[in-house]
């Protein structure tokens, strides 16, 4: 695995941790999504209680060159409330499934947040001045008796303490029968897609009363249902191209120019099954939990239960790279099925975009390309695609000292456990890292444990 020092290897250090300290986790505090905005200045989290918390990076202090700005709470708001579907007699969870930022166009910031059924566009704006000196109103807001007004003045703006306001600007509702698992903003920045288990809809950001259905895999007879949509994403550059992944381990690439309903894929990405690894759990562990395009759009990454795969969009029959996240779990699949852990949906992410400019295939790029994903026991893994080295790190309050390099972890699959290794049977399967995010420009990562958000950055010299 990645050793400390040497070449371009990143040395990760603890920076901050957010969230409650006690082990007793309130259900509402469980983090369900993490996302940096396009500049990396803002970091948003969504939780099971329907709240969004946005952290803002402090402006870098020129004198403190050895660390980057800290992230502090910028805004907190209740994005979604629990609802009750009277027709089905079921609750609709307020849990935030995904947050996606829009690129910044003016002073305000915009993001999309979604629960199982409804997507909302939020505007987050700052207010640092307020008008004072009204003629008809006192400073406290009470109205003055007009007869007491003897002179007129022009109200002026005076500075005030910074207030960050979040207001819902659009509510995109009633378009999904099944649970929304993904939202993705198109590269045209005007439209976006939302995907549930069986359908994908295309929306215009300005229009809330209708959406276009672009994928529908619901069978005429629900008894024939054997496959669902698990994730979907627009291509980063081509505004008519998107992909969606399925519970059978396939990825379909669709072109919206081909037809209104993209029932027929343009490309189907699927790796043939390895017969020597076949078991009753083969299908379940092949189910893709996340799909992410590389920043160039030439590759895409998928996460299934045990591995991360990198696909070249030009090659459909197998991935170009496969990285094992926790292969030692393969012999434990029955237990993981029993306790439902086998259904955990891990996400994955690429490192920041500036480092992935791809030249022609003749020119070797020594710009770094690293992918990251979570595991159990609060471990998370990174795979360097160039050096082919990988590292396992832990998000734990025990590594609390800033600028101390994190110690790599190792799981002992079988046989004699070396010192500092942890055996598979000692892993805590309640401590899972499902959500991770990488700053778009710098080596700063946000890693969510159950109810805490860890921020790590590389060691600066």
């Amino acid at each position, binding site marked *: 695995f990645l050793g400390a020092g040497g070449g371009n290897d990143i040395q990760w250090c603890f920076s901050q941790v957010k969230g409650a300290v006690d082990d007793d986790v309130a259900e509402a505090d469980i983090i369900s999504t993490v996302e940096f905005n396009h500049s990396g200045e803002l970091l948003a989290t969504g939780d099971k209680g329907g709240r969004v918390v946005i952290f803002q990076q402090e402006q870098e202090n020129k004198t403190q060159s050895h660390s980057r700005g800290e992230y502090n709470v910028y805004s907190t708001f209740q994005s979604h409330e629990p609802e009750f579907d009277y027709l089905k007699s079921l609750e609709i969870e307020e849990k935030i499934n995904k947050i996606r930022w829009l690129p910044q166009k003016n002073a305000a910031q915009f993001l999309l947040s979604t629960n199982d059924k409804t997507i909302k566009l939020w505007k987050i704006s700052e207010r640092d001045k307020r008008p004072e000196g009204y003629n008809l109103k006192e400073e406290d807001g009470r109205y003055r008796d007009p007869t007491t007004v003897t002179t007129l003045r022009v109200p002026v703006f005076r500075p005030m303490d910074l207030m960050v306001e979040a207001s819902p600007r659009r509510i995109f509702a009633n378009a999904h029968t099944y649970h929304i698992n993904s939202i993705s903003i198109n590269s045209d920045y005007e439209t976006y897609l939302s995907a549930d288990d069986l359908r994908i809809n295309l929306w215009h950001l300005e229009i809330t009363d209708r959406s276009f259905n672009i994928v529908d895999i619901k069978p005429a007879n629900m008894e024939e249902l054997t496959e*669902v949509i698990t994730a979907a994403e627009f291509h980063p550059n081509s505004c008519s191209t998107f992909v969606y992944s399925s519970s059978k381990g396939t990825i379909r690439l669709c072109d919206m120019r081909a037809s209104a309903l993209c029932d027929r894929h343009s490309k189907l990405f699927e790796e043939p099954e390895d017969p020597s690894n076949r078991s009753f759990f083969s299908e*379940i562990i092949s189910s893709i939990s996340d799909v992410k395009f590389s920043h160039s759009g030439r590759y895409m990454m998928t996460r299934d239960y045990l591995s991360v795969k990198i696909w070249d969009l030009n090659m459909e029959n197998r991935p170009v790279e496969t990285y094992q996240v926790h292969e030692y779990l393969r012999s*434990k699949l029955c237990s993981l099925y029993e306790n439902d852990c086998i259904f955990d949906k891990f996400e994955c992410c690429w490192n920041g975009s500036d480092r992935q400019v791809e030249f022609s295939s003749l020119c070797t790029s020594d710009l770094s390309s690293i992918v990251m994903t979570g595991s159990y026991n609060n471990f998370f893994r990174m795979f360097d695609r160039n050096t082919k080295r990988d590292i396992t790190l832990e998000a734990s309050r025990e590594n609390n000292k800033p600028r101390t390099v994190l110690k790599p972890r190792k799981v002992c699959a079988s046989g004699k456990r070396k010192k500092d290794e942890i055996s598979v049977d000692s892993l805590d399967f309640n401590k899972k890292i499902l959500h991770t995010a990488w700053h778009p420009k710098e080596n700063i990562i946000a890693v969510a444990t159950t109810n805490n958000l860890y921020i790590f950055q590389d060691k600066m010299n």
Partner: protein
Amino acid sequence: MFVRGLKRKCFDGEEDIEGTLAGIKAIPSYNLQRQSLLDMSLVKLQLCHMLVEPNLCRSVLIANTVRQIQEEMTQDGTWQMINTQSTGQASLDRLVSTDILCRSSRDQAEGKHVPAYGTYNKDFESDQAQDSSETMSTASSVQAPRNLQSNVWEMENPQENKGNFQKSLDQIFETLENKSPNSVEDLFSEVDNSYYDLDTMLTGMMSSTKMGHCDSLETFSSPTNTASNSNCKSDLNDLDHIVEILVES
């Protein structure tokens, strides 16, 4: 743990089995483990969060697993094997092989569903003489919660699937009527065949009362608990009682 690889590997004596003796021993063990996986899967399909719509992806994956097992068991003809096994010891082996990795805090998080599931497991382990009773327990356990949990797939068009009572996956429960020779099956002959239809259950056609499903499951559980290790006759009385509850609900 599971013997990895396809069932026919065992029969073919291929490389996975070290030595003939181990191969022979592996065969019933594989069947038992497969049966326990089937039981576990059926329970999982029922024990969904009732207040919130269940996770469709999870349900689909579990149902596909059930289908896989059922197909393989049908191909092997192992349904007959299970019915002719007469020892209760087999049932004890069935669920012991799975090791549980999660701590108990996980169980607490599951809320009241897990005690029901836990009770259910124990019922199997302490279950009585006949395996046929067990498979019928499987069937009736499918019935009990299914009456109350109707939303595994969807609720939007309950009417559209009403015609499909005789669909596939009947085979799981079919043997109960056709192959088991004892009088317990008479109890079930009065029950609508559609109860055995896994697809029916999955499409949520049955009644829509949802609250108190756990009560029903526990009601089901307790008779079998008290009947542990007793003879078949008292089992019949218990099952009688259970069917009464189910038919009335």
